[in-house]
């Protein structure tokens, strides 16, 4: 009721912006504390991320992974589920991509392998999300704990598979053989150069376009289908959802299948797009970063794209920053990420009540 009197822009823009500014302010203080100038650091960061073609390419390449995991977290969030297992789902999704590429790259052309790899990533990622979802929906175990456990199980499984089965014969390095070139997703700079557009060499590849398509898909699915309505009802009020006759267990399981599948697409970008072989730990924390992206993007596809580009810029700019200012490590980006989760996630009510109160009082007066 009181909600009605608060202008929409306050909740959509003002409060999120305030939370993020606070996160950046504290990050600036951290940089100040280690004896560097935060303004100068921000300058290097922005130049590194957006100042030249390759930098932009890298920024968008990192953003690709973050869009996938951000969408994964937000689809689950919409249904009131906390999928903390994006890391494991992405890892197993990469296994799916790798197996398709390894088995078909000698015989099939790219236009056969690529769709199969997309399916492989989705199916493997979804399968890894399915078990925790089933256990939550049918046996009442808590999804947060089971997805955490599944991250560790995924990690051990991948070590076992790669070291014992997929490793290249006679090599020490724990990764599979490099795929033939017809199983490589084309880089965007290669696609654009025949058109006379030069965008600088970077790992940015076709999966970025796929990530954008996934955003459209999620937007349509969550806001414009009957299932999406059920999902949002479940997330807002599970009791009401049950009374309305929604099969909540089924919605829960499907939400996690889609979430896991989306997270699995990280494998598409990393395995098929950039590394071209199956290797250990390629997920590098993107699953957890997806939580920050989803929180900052307010679980909205447009917001997630913006948040993913911002975090991609932090990853890329952070590398540049560490190069320019030797006392700063790229891990400063992880600190900023954590602060964003803290201020726009855990402390989201800190300003909200006061600011809303201010606008309500003003509307009454």
């Amino acid at each position, binding site marked *: 009721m009181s909600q009605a009197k608060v202008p929409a822009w306050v909740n959509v823009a003002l409060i999120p912006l305030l939370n993020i500014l606070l996160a950046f302010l504290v990050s600036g203080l951290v940089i100040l504390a280690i004896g560097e100038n935060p303004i100068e650091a921000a300058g290097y960061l922005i130049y590194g991320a957006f100042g030249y073609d390759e930098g932009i390419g890298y920024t968008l390449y990192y953003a690709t992974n973050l869009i996938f995991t951000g969408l994964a977290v937000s689809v689950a969030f919409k249904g009131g589920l906390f999928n*903390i297992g994006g890391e494991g789902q992405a890892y197993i999704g990469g296994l799916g991509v790798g197996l398709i590429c390894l088995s078909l790259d000698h015989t099939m052309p790219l236009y056969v392998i690529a769709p199969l790899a997309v399916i492989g990533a989705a199916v493997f990622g979804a399968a890894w999300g399915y078990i925790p979802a089933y256990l939550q929906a049918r046996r009442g175990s808590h999804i947060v704990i089971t997805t955490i*456990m599944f991250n560790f199980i995924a990690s051990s499984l991948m070590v076992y598979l790669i070291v014992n089965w997929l490793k290249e014969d006679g090599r020490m390095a724990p990764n599979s053989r490099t795929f033939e070139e017809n199983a490589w997703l084309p880089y965007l700079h290669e696609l654009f150069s025949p058109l006379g557009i030069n965008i600088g060499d970077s790992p940015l590849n076709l999966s970025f376009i796929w990530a954008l398509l996934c955003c459209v898909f999620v937007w349509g699915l969550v806001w414009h289908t009957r299932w999406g309505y059920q999902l949002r009802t479940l997330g807002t009020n599970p009791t009401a959802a049950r009374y309305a006759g929604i099969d909540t267990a089924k919605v829960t399981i499907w939400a996690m299948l889609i979430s896991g599948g989306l997270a699995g697409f990280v494998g598409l970008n990393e395995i098929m797009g950039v590394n071209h072989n199956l290797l250990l730990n390629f997920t590098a924390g993107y699953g957890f970063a997806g939580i920050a992206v989803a929180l900052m993007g307010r679980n909205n596809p447009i917001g997630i794209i913006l948040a993913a580009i911002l975090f991609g810029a932090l990853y890329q700019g952070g590398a540049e920053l560490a190069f320019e200012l030797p006392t700063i490590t790229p891990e400063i980006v*992880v*600190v900023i990420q*954590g*602060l964003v989760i803290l201020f726009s996630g855990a*402390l989201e009510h800190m300003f909200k009540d006061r600011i809303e109160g201010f606008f309500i009082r003003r509307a009454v007066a």
Partner: protein
Amino acid sequence: MFETLILMLDATMRVSTPLIFAALAGLFSERAGIVDIGLEGKILGSAFAAAAAASVFGSAWIGLCFGIVASICLAMIHGFACITHRGDHIVSGVAINTIVAGLTVTLSMYWFGMGGQTPALVGDARFLDITFPFADAIASVPVIGPIYSNLLSGHNILVYLAFAMVPVTYWVIYKTRFGLRLRAVGENPHAVDTAGISVAFIRYRALIICGILCGLAGAYLSTAHNAGFLKDMSAGKGYMALAALIFGKWRPVPVLLACLLFGFLDAVAVRMQGVEIPGIGQVPVQAIEVLPYVLTVLLLAGFIGKAIGPKAIGRPYVKERA
């Protein structure tokens, strides 16, 4: 065979110690209704603070104090978000883990410039092993000798402290007024509030205890078990402690047994590397390493017993107003 068993149990005690501290820390927090995913971050933060302070001041005890203070600070951030501002417990825990993972490396680069490590700790900067009286004299006695002088004797003080914390926790949780209120806050905060007791104050105190215990776990890792801080050295111990807490169904003694079981599995995994078992062949190390997580999932799924947590866990308490 007996020798091997003693060696493995000895390793079990060393590996279990941080798990016991952290799982008991989680027990205090979760019995009071606060979900603590942030155990991992608190252990890592304390490990760094303890190693850094120990190397600067040359004393393991000063290091331990710094570790505990760092861990309590993190617990208070968690409390500020979850108790005062009714934030999501899981989100807050993830935030703490992420911040600490980045901050420890950033600060250690700034202070020590050694690629995210602290300098190696020597002498008094580490907790050294304690040898029990007559350990050497009895060592040659069969059965009792190896048990006394190899298994029980020869650990550092924190190992013994961890085992001592189990009865202490039992006593605090089940036999004191504070423990009764703490459990009540985790089950039915409204009842506690009606009795005129502050829910928030009890939860904050539970988190301070949680911080102290995580601080001990972290200091053990960097100043007793290892000689210095390494990047990401907690390596999932906080999550495994969380698993042990659930596996032990939020009760001190079963939690201890769960920690020992997980520690033992770790010792087995190390021991089994490349060993052929007749009839089965080589068991992959990873298969043993994942057992704690698989067992916890099976338990949660109700396939082996049933894990029912505190009722009000993870829900913010909002005081009713007239």
